[in-house]
């Protein structure tokens, strides 16, 4: 297990290096950071001085080494917009996004397992058809629209919940719900279909022949067997939420997390802040994958990744 973790960490480090190289290449080679960050009216001298200040006058190789050194010390430069270290902004906003994701995805995970299992018990039955239809509906509605719909109903019409912003726990409800919808639908579908498959496996017949109660068969035997595919999808949902859905949902609800900050950084041409956000998210994704691999190995003894 120890060597397995070391091996995964080593692979993770390689991925992070790849990400750094890509970020570096995209910002330095395919665009001009100086004209991106300075106003159009800046003079040639000002541009030159700025390029020198951020080290753009050096050869690319030297720039890359410096860039890596900066990454290693989490020094992403100063945010032009906020006038303070970019990483400070990221660490200030990240917990807010994690709180939103934790609530939304936690809700989706808690609900998807019982819903999927109920549907799988009687495939084609009334509950199954209801859950499948609701799931399809959930999958087909884009989040920006669901968000607006929820605001119209619960905030504007019923005046039950705040429209946007952050402050009380009530502010969390609508954005978390919007974020949860797609993962909830997809995870429920997965639990349903893999549970139907699993209940037809021969080992389930063996357990039934032991005379164990059906609930124990579900809880102890089949649930564990669908856990690998479930966690694979749940991990993927976490990653897409972190790197995509939050941008939309935080924008709709003006939730001041990392996603909204990313949008603002792009609008303001704040290259250093953007880099910091991309890098931290990439790092989180690599970490999530390592944790998932370790958990998989704990669930299924047949997995051998060495």
């Amino acid at each position, binding site marked *: 297990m120890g060597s397995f973790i070391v091996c995964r960490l080593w692979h993770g480090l390689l991925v992070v290096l790849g990400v750094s190289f890509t970020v570096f290449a995209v910002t330095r080679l395919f665009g001009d950071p100086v004209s991106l960050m300075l106003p159009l009216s800046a003079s040639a001298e000002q541009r030159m001085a700025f390029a020198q200040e951020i080290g753009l006058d050096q050869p690319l190789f030297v720039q890359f080494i410096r860039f890596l050194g900066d990454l290693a010390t989490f020094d992403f430069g100063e945010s032009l917009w906020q006038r303070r270290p970019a990483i400070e902004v990221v660490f200030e906003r990240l917990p807010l996004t994690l709180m939103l994701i934790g609530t939304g995805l936690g809700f989706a995970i808690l609900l998807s397992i019982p819903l999927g299992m109920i549907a799988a018990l009687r495939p084609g039955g009334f509950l199954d058809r209801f859950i499948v239809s609701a799931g399809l509906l959930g999958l087909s509605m884009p989040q920006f629209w669901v968000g607006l719909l929820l605001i119209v109903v619960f905030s504007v019409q019923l005046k039950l919940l705040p429209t946007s912003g952050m402050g009380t726990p009530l502010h969390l409800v609508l954005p978390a719900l919007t974020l949860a919808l797609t993962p909830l639908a997809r995870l429920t579908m997965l639990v349903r279909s893999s549970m139907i498959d699993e209940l037809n*496996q*021969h*080992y389930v*017949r*063996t*357990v*039934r*022949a*032991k*005379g*164990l*109660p059906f609930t*124990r068969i579900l809880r*102890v*035997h089949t649930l*564990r*067997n669908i856990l690998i595919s479930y966690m694979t999808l749940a991990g993927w949902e976490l990653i897409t939420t972190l790197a995509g859905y939050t941008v939309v949902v935080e924008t709709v609800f003006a939730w001041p997390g990392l996603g909204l900050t990313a949008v603002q950084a792009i609008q303001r041409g704040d290259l250093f802040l953007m880099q910091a956000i991309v890098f931290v998210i990439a790092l989180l994704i690599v970490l999530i994958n390592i944790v998932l691999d370790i958990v998989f190995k704990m*669930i*299924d*003894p*047949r997995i051998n990744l060495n």
Partner: protein
Amino acid sequence: MSAQTAPLLEVDGLRVDFASRAGLVQAINEVSLVVHKGETLGLVGESGSGKSVSAQAVMGLISPPGAITGGDVRWCGTSLLGRKGERYARSVRGKNIAMIFQDPMTSLNPLMTVGDQIGEAMRYHLGFTHVQARRRAEELLGAVGLSAPARRLDQYPHELSGGMRQRVMIAMAISCEPELLIADEPTTALDVTIQAQILELLARLQKELGLAIILITHDLGVVAGICNRVAVMYAGRIVETGDVDTIFEDPGHPYTQGLLRSTPSLEGTEDTLMSIDGIPPRLIDPQPGCPFLPRCPIGVDACRQAPPAEAWKGSAVRCWKAGADAWSMGATRAQEAGL
């Protein structure tokens, strides 16, 4: 065997139907069996004849689209069917009646250790603690002939070979000291040498524990070797039941006769083995009368009505012409016809 004592298991006129798109499939119909303490009943027949379905019905393993639609299954005189029987059945299943299956490779939960899987039934039925169940599981693994049983407890099924897994299945089945073991083709998926070992193990356990066994197989050699009584199934019905010696010596039903003749023997002098022409009938809306009629060489008009169970040399034979030598007559007829 001990016909005076009350039977352990009685299956009485059992019928199981499966709903399919093409119609209702009558998997088994009018199946009646009796198993006494300590005896071995062989259930033979070709694939699809309803052997496994009968066993699964006894174990309550029929699930939709299948359903038990008639008859009764009784354990020590009490029904296992119906809403009332279901509760009783759950206490009997796994404790008094245990079952092992054809495919040991897929019949174990891949994510649970061997020790936990063996201990599970004991913890549920006998109220064993984890430690007790583990200790007993180790003994059982030794009893079924696995080497280093203590080490096996923490192994997972994928670390064991097919023969070893079937031994684990057997250890699991006998863990609560059942009175009846249903073995559904326990050796079909195994190598020939391992097959013999597993059958020997079953025979030894039967002697030591006084187990009754229902052995489902299509291997007549196995039946002759270890069974006391045989029930022959064809197209979802039992066509002949009786003592193993009688049936091998003097089969009463044309199907049984054909089956025995199509089995090679060391003393056999024939150049070619006989085969029964035709295929078993479809089980969707079956014709009334004897299901074997289309393939039977001595079928008569009376066969269009369901035959009663005729007594023939101590066996019960469902045939209007029980005991008639179907195949030599048939062969003569075929020769006359110039075939």
